[in-house]
Protein backbone atom coordinates (compact mmCIF):
# COMPACT_ATOMS: atom_id res chain seq x y z
CA UNK A 1 0.00 0.00 0.00
CA UNK A 2 1.41 3.37 -0.95
CA UNK A 3 0.42 6.94 -0.23
CA UNK A 4 -1.40 7.39 -3.51
CA UNK A 5 -4.12 4.94 -2.54
CA UNK A 6 -7.46 5.85 -1.01
CA UNK A 7 -8.92 3.36 1.44
CA UNK A 8 -12.70 3.04 1.49
CA UNK A 9 -13.88 0.65 4.18
CA UNK A 10 -17.29 -0.99 4.33
CA UNK A 11 -18.94 -0.96 7.74
CA UNK A 12 -22.54 -1.98 7.13
CA UNK A 13 -24.18 -4.05 4.41
CA UNK A 14 -27.83 -3.51 5.37
CA UNK A 15 -29.94 -1.99 8.14
CA UNK A 16 -29.49 -4.51 10.92
CA UNK A 17 -25.94 -5.58 10.05
CA UNK A 18 -23.32 -6.18 12.77
CA UNK A 19 -23.02 -3.06 14.94
CA UNK A 20 -19.36 -3.70 15.81
CA UNK A 21 -18.18 -3.68 12.20
CA UNK A 22 -17.98 0.09 11.62
CA UNK A 23 -16.17 0.58 14.93
CA UNK A 24 -13.61 -2.08 14.08
CA UNK A 25 -13.10 -0.58 10.61
CA UNK A 26 -12.28 2.82 12.12
CA UNK A 27 -10.22 1.62 15.08
CA UNK A 28 -8.33 -1.46 13.92
CA UNK A 29 -6.24 0.12 11.19
CA UNK A 30 -5.89 3.03 8.80
CA UNK A 31 -8.79 3.93 6.50
CA UNK A 32 -9.77 7.16 4.75
CA UNK A 33 -13.49 6.64 4.26
CA UNK A 34 -16.11 4.55 5.99
CA UNK A 35 -19.10 3.67 3.83
CA UNK A 36 -22.29 2.39 5.40
CA UNK A 37 -25.08 0.95 3.28
CA UNK A 38 -28.39 0.77 5.12
CA UNK A 39 -30.93 0.64 2.34
CA UNK A 40 -32.82 -1.98 0.43
CA UNK A 41 -36.16 -1.53 -1.34
CA UNK A 42 -37.98 -3.07 1.59
CA UNK A 43 -36.09 -0.81 4.03
CA UNK A 44 -37.35 2.29 2.25
CA UNK A 45 -40.97 1.24 2.63
CA UNK A 46 -40.48 0.37 6.32
CA UNK A 47 -38.95 3.78 6.88
CA UNK A 48 -41.78 5.46 5.00
CA UNK A 49 -44.27 3.68 7.25
CA UNK A 50 -42.36 4.86 10.34
CA UNK A 51 -42.31 8.40 9.05
CA UNK A 52 -46.05 8.39 8.38
CA UNK A 53 -46.55 7.68 12.10
CA UNK A 54 -43.84 10.06 13.30
CA UNK A 55 -42.59 12.91 11.06
CA UNK A 56 -39.19 12.85 12.82
CA UNK A 57 -38.59 9.17 11.97
CA UNK A 58 -37.83 7.40 8.69
CA UNK A 59 -34.05 6.92 8.80
CA UNK A 60 -31.62 4.32 10.19
CA UNK A 61 -31.86 5.22 13.85
CA UNK A 62 -28.87 3.21 15.06
CA UNK A 63 -26.61 5.33 12.85
CA UNK A 64 -27.02 8.26 15.27
CA UNK A 65 -25.58 6.63 18.42
CA UNK A 66 -22.90 5.04 16.23
CA UNK A 67 -21.68 8.48 15.13
CA UNK A 68 -21.84 9.79 18.69
CA UNK A 69 -19.53 6.98 19.74
CA UNK A 70 -17.22 7.29 16.74
CA UNK A 71 -17.07 11.10 16.42
CA UNK A 72 -13.80 11.56 18.38
CA UNK A 73 -12.17 8.73 16.40
CA UNK A 74 -13.31 10.18 13.08
CA UNK A 75 -11.62 13.50 13.89
CA UNK A 76 -8.50 11.97 15.42
CA UNK A 77 -7.98 9.48 12.58
CA UNK A 78 -9.24 11.75 9.81
CA UNK A 79 -11.93 9.35 8.60
CA UNK A 80 -14.89 10.57 6.52
CA UNK A 81 -18.22 8.75 6.66
CA UNK A 82 -20.45 8.32 3.61
CA UNK A 83 -23.79 6.62 4.17
CA UNK A 84 -27.39 6.37 3.03
CA UNK A 85 -28.71 6.23 6.59
CA UNK A 86 -31.03 9.13 5.77
CA UNK A 87 -33.59 6.73 4.31
CA UNK A 88 -36.77 8.67 3.56
CA UNK A 89 -35.85 11.46 5.99
CA UNK A 90 -32.20 12.58 5.62
CA UNK A 91 -32.96 15.91 7.27
CA UNK A 92 -34.46 14.15 10.28
CA UNK A 93 -31.30 12.07 10.51
CA UNK A 94 -29.18 15.21 10.35
CA UNK A 95 -31.22 16.90 13.10
CA UNK A 96 -30.82 13.86 15.34
CA UNK A 97 -27.05 13.88 14.72
CA UNK A 98 -26.77 17.58 15.54
CA UNK A 99 -28.77 17.08 18.71
CA UNK A 100 -26.81 14.08 19.96
CA UNK A 101 -23.41 15.57 19.08
CA UNK A 102 -24.18 18.70 21.11
CA UNK A 103 -23.36 16.66 24.23
CA UNK A 104 -20.07 15.26 22.92
CA UNK A 105 -16.80 17.02 23.68
CA UNK A 106 -14.99 17.23 20.33
CA UNK A 107 -11.75 19.01 19.36
CA UNK A 108 -13.63 20.62 16.48
CA UNK A 109 -17.17 20.53 15.13
CA UNK A 110 -18.17 17.73 12.76
CA UNK A 111 -19.46 18.92 9.42
CA UNK A 112 -22.55 17.00 8.41
CA UNK A 113 -23.45 16.99 4.70
CA UNK A 114 -27.02 16.09 3.81
CA UNK A 115 -28.23 15.09 0.37
CA UNK A 116 -31.94 15.47 -0.34
CA UNK A 117 -34.07 15.39 -3.47
CA UNK A 118 -34.33 11.68 -4.24
CA UNK A 119 -37.92 11.70 -2.96
CA UNK A 120 -40.42 12.00 -5.80
CA UNK A 121 -43.46 11.04 -3.73
CA UNK A 122 -44.50 14.54 -2.66
CA UNK A 123 -44.92 15.70 -6.27
CA UNK A 124 -46.17 12.36 -7.62
CA UNK A 125 -49.52 13.67 -8.89
CA UNK A 126 -47.86 16.63 -10.59
CA UNK A 127 -45.27 14.40 -12.25
CA UNK A 128 -47.92 12.07 -13.64
CA UNK A 129 -49.95 15.06 -14.85
CA UNK A 130 -46.90 16.46 -16.63
CA UNK A 131 -46.55 13.21 -18.55
CA UNK A 132 -44.01 11.29 -16.46
CA UNK A 133 -46.00 8.08 -16.51
CA UNK A 134 -43.31 5.99 -14.77
CA UNK A 135 -44.34 2.76 -16.46
CA UNK A 136 -43.47 -0.46 -14.69
CA UNK A 137 -40.23 -1.67 -16.26
CA UNK A 138 -41.43 -5.27 -16.09
CA UNK A 139 -45.12 -5.03 -17.05
CA UNK A 140 -45.28 -1.74 -18.98
CA UNK A 141 -48.28 -0.51 -16.99
CA UNK A 142 -48.43 3.22 -16.16
CA UNK A 143 -48.03 4.16 -12.51
CA UNK A 144 -51.47 5.77 -12.53
CA UNK A 145 -52.96 2.27 -12.16
CA UNK A 146 -51.68 2.05 -8.56
CA UNK A 147 -51.22 5.77 -7.87
CA UNK A 148 -53.57 5.90 -4.88
CA UNK A 149 -51.68 3.09 -3.15
CA UNK A 150 -48.14 4.46 -3.53
CA UNK A 151 -46.32 4.61 -0.22
CA UNK A 152 -42.80 5.67 -1.18
CA UNK A 153 -41.10 6.76 -4.39
CA UNK A 154 -37.40 7.48 -4.52
CA UNK A 155 -35.03 8.00 -7.41
CA UNK A 156 -31.63 6.35 -7.19
CA UNK A 157 -29.11 9.21 -7.03
CA UNK A 158 -25.56 8.74 -8.23
CA UNK A 159 -22.30 10.11 -6.88
CA UNK A 160 -22.76 13.78 -7.86
CA UNK A 161 -24.30 15.19 -4.68
CA UNK A 162 -22.02 13.12 -2.42
CA UNK A 163 -18.98 14.47 -4.26
CA UNK A 164 -20.35 17.98 -3.80
CA UNK A 165 -20.75 17.42 -0.06
CA UNK A 166 -17.17 16.11 0.18
CA UNK A 167 -15.86 19.09 -1.79
CA UNK A 168 -17.63 21.37 0.66
CA UNK A 169 -15.76 19.72 3.52
CA UNK A 170 -18.27 17.27 4.96
CA UNK A 171 -16.96 14.83 7.58
CA UNK A 172 -20.16 12.82 7.49
CA UNK A 173 -22.33 12.60 4.36
CA UNK A 174 -25.90 11.41 4.87
CA UNK A 175 -28.04 10.63 1.85
CA UNK A 176 -31.44 9.14 1.21
CA UNK A 177 -31.79 6.76 -1.74
CA UNK A 178 -28.33 6.97 -3.25
CA UNK A 179 -27.16 3.86 -5.02
CA UNK A 180 -25.28 1.50 -2.75
CA UNK A 181 -22.24 1.58 -5.03
CA UNK A 182 -22.00 5.40 -5.14
CA UNK A 183 -21.18 5.40 -1.42
CA UNK A 184 -17.84 3.81 -2.32
CA UNK A 185 -16.93 5.52 -5.60
CA UNK A 186 -18.06 9.07 -4.79
CA UNK A 187 -15.02 9.43 -2.46
CA UNK A 188 -12.79 8.16 -5.30
CA UNK A 189 -14.19 10.74 -7.74
CA UNK A 190 -13.56 13.38 -5.09
CA UNK A 191 -10.02 12.24 -4.28
CA UNK A 192 -8.79 11.45 -7.81
CA UNK A 193 -10.74 14.03 -9.77
CA UNK A 194 -12.22 11.48 -12.18
CA UNK A 195 -14.25 13.16 -14.91
CA UNK A 196 -17.97 12.59 -15.55
CA UNK A 197 -17.15 10.73 -18.78
CA UNK A 198 -14.25 8.72 -17.40
CA UNK A 199 -16.37 5.63 -18.00
CA UNK A 200 -13.71 3.00 -17.27
CA UNK A 201 -12.62 4.53 -13.97
CA UNK A 202 -16.21 5.12 -12.90
CA UNK A 203 -17.03 1.50 -13.77
CA UNK A 204 -14.07 0.35 -11.69
CA UNK A 205 -15.50 2.41 -8.85
CA UNK A 206 -18.85 0.69 -9.33
CA UNK A 207 -17.18 -2.72 -9.07
CA UNK A 208 -15.44 -1.57 -5.89
CA UNK A 209 -18.80 -0.38 -4.60
CA UNK A 210 -20.46 -3.68 -5.41
CA UNK A 211 -17.76 -5.49 -3.45
CA UNK A 212 -18.19 -3.16 -0.47
CA UNK A 213 -21.96 -2.88 -0.37
CA UNK A 214 -22.76 -6.18 1.34
CA UNK A 215 -20.20 -5.99 4.12
CA UNK A 216 -18.65 -9.29 5.13
CA UNK A 217 -20.19 -11.11 2.16
CA UNK A 218 -16.96 -10.19 0.33
CA UNK A 219 -14.65 -11.27 3.14
CA UNK A 220 -15.72 -14.80 3.91
CA UNK A 221 -19.22 -14.26 5.31
CA UNK A 222 -21.65 -16.64 3.61
CA UNK A 223 -18.81 -18.22 1.61
CA UNK A 224 -19.43 -21.69 0.22
CA UNK A 225 -15.86 -22.01 -1.04
CA UNK A 226 -14.44 -23.19 2.27
CA UNK A 227 -16.70 -21.96 5.04
CA UNK A 228 -15.26 -24.23 7.71
CA UNK A 229 -11.90 -22.52 7.68
CA UNK A 230 -13.13 -18.92 8.07
CA UNK A 231 -13.11 -17.33 11.53
CA UNK A 232 -16.36 -15.37 11.60
CA UNK A 233 -16.49 -14.31 15.26
CA UNK A 234 -15.06 -10.89 14.48
CA UNK A 235 -14.70 -10.75 10.70
CA UNK A 236 -12.85 -7.94 9.01
CA UNK A 237 -15.24 -6.21 6.62
CA UNK A 238 -13.91 -5.29 3.16
CA UNK A 239 -11.58 -2.39 2.53
CA UNK A 240 -10.96 -1.13 -1.00
CA UNK A 241 -7.52 0.38 -1.55
CA UNK A 242 -8.05 2.33 -4.74
CA UNK A 243 -5.59 3.94 -7.12
CA UNK A 244 -6.11 6.85 -9.49
CA UNK A 245 -6.13 4.59 -12.57
CA UNK A 246 -9.18 2.70 -11.29
CA UNK A 247 -7.37 -0.44 -10.19
CA UNK A 248 -7.77 -1.43 -6.58
CA UNK A 249 -7.00 -4.06 -3.98
CA UNK A 250 -9.69 -5.61 -1.80
CA UNK A 251 -8.42 -6.39 1.67
CA UNK A 252 -9.37 -6.26 5.36
CA UNK A 253 -7.67 -5.26 8.57
CA UNK A 254 -5.12 -7.84 9.72
CA UNK A 255 -5.93 -9.14 13.18
CA UNK A 256 -9.62 -9.55 12.45
CA UNK A 257 -11.32 -12.70 11.19
CA UNK A 258 -12.78 -13.29 7.75
CA UNK A 259 -10.85 -14.04 4.57
CA UNK A 260 -10.21 -12.20 1.32
CA UNK A 261 -9.44 -14.52 -1.58
CA UNK A 262 -10.35 -14.68 -5.25
CA UNK A 263 -13.18 -16.98 -4.16
CA UNK A 264 -14.76 -14.73 -1.53
CA UNK A 265 -14.53 -11.69 -3.82
CA UNK A 266 -15.94 -13.57 -6.82
CA UNK A 267 -18.88 -14.78 -4.75
CA UNK A 268 -19.77 -11.19 -3.90
CA UNK A 269 -19.26 -10.08 -7.52
CA UNK A 270 -21.93 -12.49 -8.76
CA UNK A 271 -24.34 -11.67 -5.93
CA UNK A 272 -27.62 -10.23 -7.27
CA UNK A 273 -26.08 -10.09 -10.73
CA UNK A 274 -28.17 -9.73 -13.88
CA UNK A 275 -26.45 -9.35 -17.25
CA UNK A 276 -22.77 -9.05 -16.25
CA UNK A 277 -22.04 -6.73 -19.18
CA UNK A 278 -24.84 -4.34 -18.21
CA UNK A 279 -24.51 -3.25 -14.60
CA UNK A 280 -26.46 -0.01 -14.86
CA UNK A 281 -25.85 2.87 -12.45
CA UNK A 282 -26.73 6.57 -12.65
CA UNK A 283 -23.08 7.40 -13.47
CA UNK A 284 -22.05 4.74 -15.97
CA UNK A 285 -22.74 1.20 -17.17
CA UNK A 286 -20.13 -1.16 -15.76
CA UNK A 287 -19.09 -4.30 -17.63
CA UNK A 288 -18.33 -7.05 -15.10
CA UNK A 289 -17.14 -9.33 -17.90
CA UNK A 290 -13.99 -7.17 -18.16
CA UNK A 291 -12.93 -7.57 -14.52
CA UNK A 292 -9.44 -9.03 -14.02
CA UNK A 293 -8.92 -10.55 -10.58
CA UNK A 294 -5.61 -11.54 -9.10
CA UNK A 295 -5.27 -13.15 -5.71
CA UNK A 296 -2.09 -11.63 -4.26
CA UNK A 297 -2.21 -13.79 -1.13
CA UNK A 298 -2.28 -12.49 2.42
CA UNK A 299 -5.96 -11.44 2.20
CA UNK A 300 -5.34 -9.17 -0.78
CA UNK A 301 -7.12 -9.46 -4.12
CA UNK A 302 -6.34 -7.06 -6.94
CA UNK A 303 -9.03 -5.89 -9.37
CA UNK A 304 -8.14 -4.19 -12.64
CA UNK A 305 -9.04 -3.88 -16.30
CA UNK A 306 -12.65 -2.82 -15.66
CA UNK A 307 -14.37 -1.18 -18.61
CA UNK A 308 -17.45 0.98 -18.60
CA UNK A 309 -19.81 2.73 -20.95
CA UNK A 310 -21.89 5.88 -21.09
CA UNK A 311 -24.39 6.50 -18.32
CA UNK A 312 -28.12 5.94 -19.04
CA UNK A 313 -30.40 8.80 -20.03
CA UNK A 314 -32.84 8.20 -17.22
CA UNK A 315 -32.71 7.43 -13.51
CA UNK A 316 -34.30 4.44 -11.88
CA UNK A 317 -37.09 5.10 -9.41
CA UNK A 318 -38.08 2.62 -6.76
CA UNK A 319 -41.76 2.92 -5.95
CA UNK A 320 -43.43 1.01 -3.13
CA UNK A 321 -47.19 0.55 -3.13
CA UNK A 322 -49.66 -1.26 -0.89
CA UNK A 323 -50.71 -4.54 -2.45
CA UNK A 324 -52.86 -6.50 -0.04
CA UNK A 325 -52.07 -8.35 3.17
CA UNK A 326 -50.32 -11.47 4.34
CA UNK A 327 -49.54 -13.44 7.49
CA UNK A 328 -47.32 -16.40 8.24
CA UNK A 329 -47.50 -18.74 11.24
CA UNK A 330 -45.67 -21.83 12.41
CA UNK A 331 -46.23 -24.91 14.60
CA UNK A 332 -43.74 -27.68 15.38
CA UNK A 333 -44.57 -31.41 15.31
CA UNK A 334 -42.35 -33.95 17.09
CA UNK A 335 -41.35 -37.56 16.40
CA UNK A 336 -42.82 -40.02 15.67
CA UNK A 337 -44.38 -39.37 12.26
CA UNK A 338 -43.60 -35.66 12.49
CA UNK A 339 -44.05 -35.02 8.76
CA UNK A 340 -47.30 -36.96 8.59
CA UNK A 341 -48.71 -35.04 11.57
CA UNK A 342 -47.71 -31.72 10.07
CA UNK A 343 -49.36 -32.66 6.76
CA UNK A 344 -52.53 -33.67 8.58
CA UNK A 345 -52.50 -30.39 10.53
CA UNK A 346 -52.24 -28.52 7.24
CA UNK A 347 -55.28 -30.39 5.89
CA UNK A 348 -57.26 -29.59 9.04
CA UNK A 349 -56.29 -25.94 8.86
CA UNK A 350 -57.21 -25.62 5.20
CA UNK A 351 -60.51 -27.37 5.85
CA UNK A 352 -61.36 -24.88 8.57
CA UNK A 353 -60.38 -21.89 6.39
CA UNK A 354 -62.67 -23.24 3.68
CA UNK A 355 -65.57 -23.78 6.08
CA UNK A 356 -65.23 -20.16 7.12
CA UNK A 357 -65.53 -19.09 3.48
CA UNK A 358 -62.26 -17.18 3.56
CA UNK A 359 -60.70 -16.31 0.23
CA UNK A 360 -56.97 -16.10 -0.33
CA UNK A 361 -54.84 -15.45 -3.41
CA UNK A 362 -52.50 -18.07 -2.06
CA UNK A 363 -52.08 -20.44 0.86
CA UNK A 364 -48.54 -21.80 1.03
CA UNK A 365 -47.46 -24.57 3.37
CA UNK A 366 -43.80 -25.43 3.83
CA UNK A 367 -42.34 -28.06 6.13
CA UNK A 368 -39.21 -26.59 7.64
CA UNK A 369 -36.75 -29.42 8.17
CA UNK A 370 -38.30 -31.45 5.35
CA UNK A 371 -37.59 -29.54 2.14
CA UNK A 372 -38.78 -25.96 2.73
CA UNK A 373 -35.66 -24.53 1.08
CA UNK A 374 -34.99 -26.89 -1.81
CA UNK A 375 -38.45 -28.35 -2.37
CA UNK A 376 -38.57 -31.53 -4.42
CA UNK A 377 -34.81 -31.30 -5.04
CA UNK A 378 -34.38 -32.44 -1.43
CA UNK A 379 -36.33 -35.64 -2.12
CA UNK A 380 -38.89 -37.22 0.20
CA UNK A 381 -38.09 -36.45 3.85
CA UNK A 382 -36.85 -39.37 6.01
CA UNK A 383 -39.63 -40.94 8.07
CA UNK A 384 -37.86 -40.65 11.38
CA UNK A 385 -37.26 -36.89 11.52
CA UNK A 386 -37.02 -35.75 15.16
CA UNK A 387 -39.36 -32.84 14.43
CA UNK A 388 -40.64 -30.67 11.65
CA UNK A 389 -41.97 -27.13 11.60
CA UNK A 390 -45.15 -26.46 9.67
CA UNK A 391 -45.04 -22.97 8.22
CA UNK A 392 -48.24 -21.66 6.64
CA UNK A 393 -48.61 -18.31 4.91
CA UNK A 394 -51.65 -16.69 3.31
CA UNK A 395 -52.11 -13.66 1.10
CA UNK A 396 -55.32 -11.77 0.31
CA UNK A 397 -56.64 -8.38 -0.68
CA UNK A 398 -59.06 -8.32 2.25
CA UNK A 399 -57.37 -7.70 5.55
CA UNK A 400 -60.16 -9.34 7.60
CA UNK A 401 -59.61 -12.67 5.84
CA UNK A 402 -55.93 -12.63 6.71
CA UNK A 403 -56.75 -11.55 10.27
CA UNK A 404 -59.14 -14.48 10.66
CA UNK A 405 -56.43 -16.88 9.46
CA UNK A 406 -54.13 -15.71 12.26
CA UNK A 407 -56.75 -17.00 14.76
CA UNK A 408 -56.80 -20.48 13.26
CA UNK A 409 -53.32 -21.69 14.19
CA UNK A 410 -53.52 -21.78 17.98
CA UNK A 411 -56.65 -24.00 18.01
CA UNK A 412 -54.58 -26.70 16.30
CA UNK A 413 -52.63 -27.18 19.52
CA UNK A 414 -55.61 -28.71 21.37
CA UNK A 415 -57.86 -29.48 18.42
CA UNK A 416 -55.37 -30.93 15.98
CA UNK A 417 -52.84 -33.75 15.49
CA UNK A 418 -50.68 -34.68 18.54
CA UNK A 419 -47.19 -33.81 19.88
CA UNK A 420 -47.30 -30.23 18.75
CA UNK A 421 -45.54 -27.23 20.25
CA UNK A 422 -43.91 -23.95 19.30
CA UNK A 423 -46.68 -21.43 19.63
CA UNK A 424 -45.03 -19.35 22.35
CA UNK A 425 -44.62 -16.39 20.01
CA UNK A 426 -48.37 -15.90 19.91
CA UNK A 427 -50.65 -15.13 17.01
CA UNK A 428 -49.01 -14.23 13.68
CA UNK A 429 -49.13 -10.56 12.70
CA UNK A 430 -51.06 -9.29 9.70
CA UNK A 431 -48.57 -7.55 7.42
CA UNK A 432 -49.32 -5.00 4.75
CA UNK A 433 -47.64 -6.09 1.53
CA UNK A 434 -45.44 -3.42 -0.02
CA UNK A 435 -44.94 -4.31 -3.63
CA UNK A 436 -42.29 -2.68 -5.80
CA UNK A 437 -42.76 -0.83 -8.99
CA UNK A 438 -39.49 -0.31 -10.81
CA UNK A 439 -39.66 2.62 -13.22
CA UNK A 440 -37.54 5.22 -14.98
CA UNK A 441 -37.70 8.98 -14.71
CA UNK A 442 -36.00 11.81 -16.60
CA UNK A 443 -32.84 13.01 -14.93
CA UNK A 444 -33.81 16.68 -15.03
CA UNK A 445 -36.88 16.11 -12.86
CA UNK A 446 -34.67 14.80 -10.08
CA UNK A 447 -31.57 16.94 -10.71
CA UNK A 448 -33.67 20.08 -10.29
CA UNK A 449 -34.65 19.14 -6.76
CA UNK A 450 -31.40 17.63 -5.44
CA UNK A 451 -29.83 19.72 -2.71
CA UNK A 452 -26.69 19.44 -0.62
CA UNK A 453 -26.56 21.20 2.74
CA UNK A 454 -23.71 21.31 5.23
CA UNK A 455 -24.23 21.97 8.93
CA UNK A 456 -21.76 21.97 11.80
CA UNK A 457 -22.38 19.82 14.83
CA UNK A 458 -20.55 19.90 18.14
Amino acid sequence: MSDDTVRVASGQGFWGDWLEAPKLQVRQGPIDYLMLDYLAEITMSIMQKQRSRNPDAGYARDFVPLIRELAPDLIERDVTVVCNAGGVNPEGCRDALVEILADVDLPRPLRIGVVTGDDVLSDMDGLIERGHDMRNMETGEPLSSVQDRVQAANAYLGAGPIVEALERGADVVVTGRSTDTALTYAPLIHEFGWGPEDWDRLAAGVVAGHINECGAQATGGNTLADWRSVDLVAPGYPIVEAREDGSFVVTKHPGLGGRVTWATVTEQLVYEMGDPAEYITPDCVADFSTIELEDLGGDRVEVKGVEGRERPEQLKVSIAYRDGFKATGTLTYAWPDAVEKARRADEVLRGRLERLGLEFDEIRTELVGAGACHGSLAGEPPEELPEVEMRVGVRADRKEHVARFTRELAPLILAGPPSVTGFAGGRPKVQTIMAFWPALIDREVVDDQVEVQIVEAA
Partner: protein
Amino acid sequence: MKVQLREVAFARSGDKGDTANVGLITYTEEAYEALVREVTEERVEGHFGELCQGGVERYEIPNLRALNFLLHGSLDGGGTRSLMLDAQGKTFSTALLRMEVDLPEEVVDGVRDRMHEERRRWREGDDGE
Protein backbone atom coordinates in the same frame (compact mmCIF):
# COMPACT_ATOMS: atom_id res chain seq x y z
CA MET B 1 -17.42 -39.34 -14.31
CA LYS B 2 -20.63 -38.31 -12.52
CA VAL B 3 -20.21 -35.69 -9.79
CA GLN B 4 -22.47 -33.30 -7.96
CA LEU B 5 -21.72 -29.67 -8.81
CA ARG B 6 -20.79 -29.05 -5.19
CA GLU B 7 -17.72 -31.23 -5.69
CA VAL B 8 -16.31 -28.99 -8.39
CA ALA B 9 -17.87 -25.56 -7.85
CA PHE B 10 -19.38 -23.16 -5.37
CA ALA B 11 -22.12 -20.57 -5.72
CA ARG B 12 -23.94 -17.56 -4.38
CA SER B 13 -27.56 -16.63 -4.95
CA GLY B 14 -29.73 -13.58 -4.47
CA ASP B 15 -32.93 -11.98 -5.72
CA LYS B 16 -34.21 -9.28 -8.02
CA GLY B 17 -37.98 -9.12 -7.76
CA ASP B 18 -39.42 -12.53 -8.66
CA THR B 19 -36.11 -13.68 -10.20
CA ALA B 20 -33.48 -15.60 -8.28
CA ASN B 21 -29.91 -15.36 -9.54
CA VAL B 22 -27.33 -18.06 -8.95
CA GLY B 23 -23.67 -17.39 -9.71
CA LEU B 24 -21.81 -20.68 -10.17
CA ILE B 25 -18.03 -20.43 -9.77
CA THR B 26 -15.35 -23.02 -10.34
CA TYR B 27 -11.64 -23.50 -9.74
CA THR B 28 -9.94 -24.14 -13.07
CA GLU B 29 -10.25 -23.07 -16.72
CA GLU B 30 -10.85 -26.69 -17.74
CA ALA B 31 -13.68 -27.06 -15.25
CA TYR B 32 -15.19 -23.78 -16.41
CA GLU B 33 -15.21 -24.98 -20.04
CA ALA B 34 -16.78 -28.26 -18.96
CA LEU B 35 -19.48 -26.48 -16.96
CA VAL B 36 -20.26 -24.24 -19.94
CA ARG B 37 -20.98 -27.44 -21.89
CA GLU B 38 -22.82 -29.30 -19.13
CA VAL B 39 -24.75 -26.75 -17.11
CA THR B 40 -26.97 -25.38 -19.84
CA GLU B 41 -30.12 -23.32 -19.50
CA GLU B 42 -32.18 -26.40 -20.38
CA ARG B 43 -30.49 -28.58 -17.78
CA VAL B 44 -30.86 -25.97 -15.04
CA GLU B 45 -34.50 -25.46 -15.93
CA GLY B 46 -35.04 -29.22 -15.75
CA HIS B 47 -33.15 -29.43 -12.46
CA PHE B 48 -35.28 -26.81 -10.72
CA GLY B 49 -38.51 -28.10 -12.25
CA GLU B 50 -41.59 -26.57 -10.64
CA LEU B 51 -39.39 -24.35 -8.44
CA CYS B 52 -38.73 -22.13 -11.45
CA GLN B 53 -41.85 -21.07 -13.35
CA GLY B 54 -40.53 -18.42 -15.73
CA GLY B 55 -37.56 -19.95 -17.52
CA VAL B 56 -33.79 -19.77 -17.10
CA GLU B 57 -31.30 -17.36 -18.67
CA ARG B 58 -27.57 -18.01 -18.53
CA TYR B 59 -24.66 -15.58 -18.85
CA GLU B 60 -21.06 -16.70 -19.30
CA ILE B 61 -18.40 -14.82 -17.33
CA PRO B 62 -15.14 -16.55 -18.31
CA ASN B 63 -12.99 -13.88 -16.65
CA LEU B 64 -14.45 -14.93 -13.29
CA ARG B 65 -14.74 -18.64 -14.20
CA ALA B 66 -18.42 -18.14 -13.41
CA LEU B 67 -21.83 -18.74 -14.95
CA ASN B 68 -24.73 -16.54 -13.90
CA PHE B 69 -28.20 -18.05 -14.00
CA LEU B 70 -31.37 -16.01 -13.79
CA LEU B 71 -34.27 -18.17 -12.60
CA HIS B 72 -37.38 -16.21 -13.47
CA GLY B 73 -40.63 -16.70 -11.59
CA SER B 74 -38.97 -18.58 -8.73
CA LEU B 75 -39.80 -16.51 -5.66
CA ASP B 76 -43.60 -16.60 -5.40
CA GLY B 77 -43.86 -13.01 -6.59
CA GLY B 78 -40.69 -11.96 -4.81
CA GLY B 79 -40.02 -9.25 -2.26
CA THR B 80 -42.69 -8.79 0.37
CA ARG B 81 -45.45 -10.50 -1.68
CA SER B 82 -43.74 -13.85 -1.41
CA LEU B 83 -44.94 -16.35 1.18
CA MET B 84 -41.81 -18.47 0.76
CA LEU B 85 -39.46 -19.08 3.66
CA ASP B 86 -36.63 -18.29 1.26
CA ALA B 87 -38.29 -15.33 -0.41
CA GLN B 88 -34.92 -13.84 -1.32
CA GLY B 89 -33.55 -16.95 -2.96
CA LYS B 90 -30.61 -17.20 -0.58
CA THR B 91 -30.54 -21.01 -0.68
CA PHE B 92 -30.92 -21.41 -4.45
CA SER B 93 -27.12 -21.53 -4.54
CA THR B 94 -26.92 -24.87 -2.79
CA ALA B 95 -30.01 -26.10 -4.62
CA LEU B 96 -28.07 -25.73 -7.89
CA LEU B 97 -25.01 -27.40 -6.35
CA ARG B 98 -27.12 -30.57 -5.95
CA MET B 99 -27.14 -31.03 -9.73
CA GLU B 100 -25.28 -34.04 -11.10
CA VAL B 101 -23.02 -33.55 -14.13
CA ASP B 102 -20.81 -35.83 -16.19
CA LEU B 103 -17.27 -34.43 -16.37
CA PRO B 104 -14.00 -35.85 -17.72
CA GLU B 105 -12.05 -37.48 -14.92
CA GLU B 106 -8.99 -35.31 -15.47
CA VAL B 107 -11.12 -32.17 -15.06
CA VAL B 108 -12.46 -33.41 -11.73
CA ASP B 109 -8.95 -34.40 -10.62
CA GLY B 110 -7.68 -30.96 -11.63
CA VAL B 111 -10.33 -29.26 -9.50
CA ARG B 112 -9.59 -31.54 -6.55
CA ASP B 113 -5.88 -30.80 -6.73
CA ARG B 114 -6.57 -27.11 -6.92
CA MET B 115 -9.06 -27.17 -4.00
CA HIS B 116 -6.68 -29.21 -1.92
CA GLU B 117 -3.85 -26.79 -2.62
CA GLU B 118 -5.99 -23.76 -1.83
CA ARG B 119 -7.31 -25.19 1.41
CA ARG B 120 -3.78 -26.02 2.49
CA ARG B 121 -2.75 -22.44 1.81
CA TRP B 122 -5.82 -21.03 3.56
CA ARG B 123 -4.97 -22.98 6.65
CA GLU B 124 -1.35 -21.96 6.52
CA GLY B 125 -2.29 -18.35 5.97
CA ASP B 126 -0.43 -18.20 2.68
CA ASP B 127 -3.16 -18.06 0.09
CA GLY B 128 -2.78 -16.88 -3.47
CA GLU B 129 -3.18 -18.10 -7.00
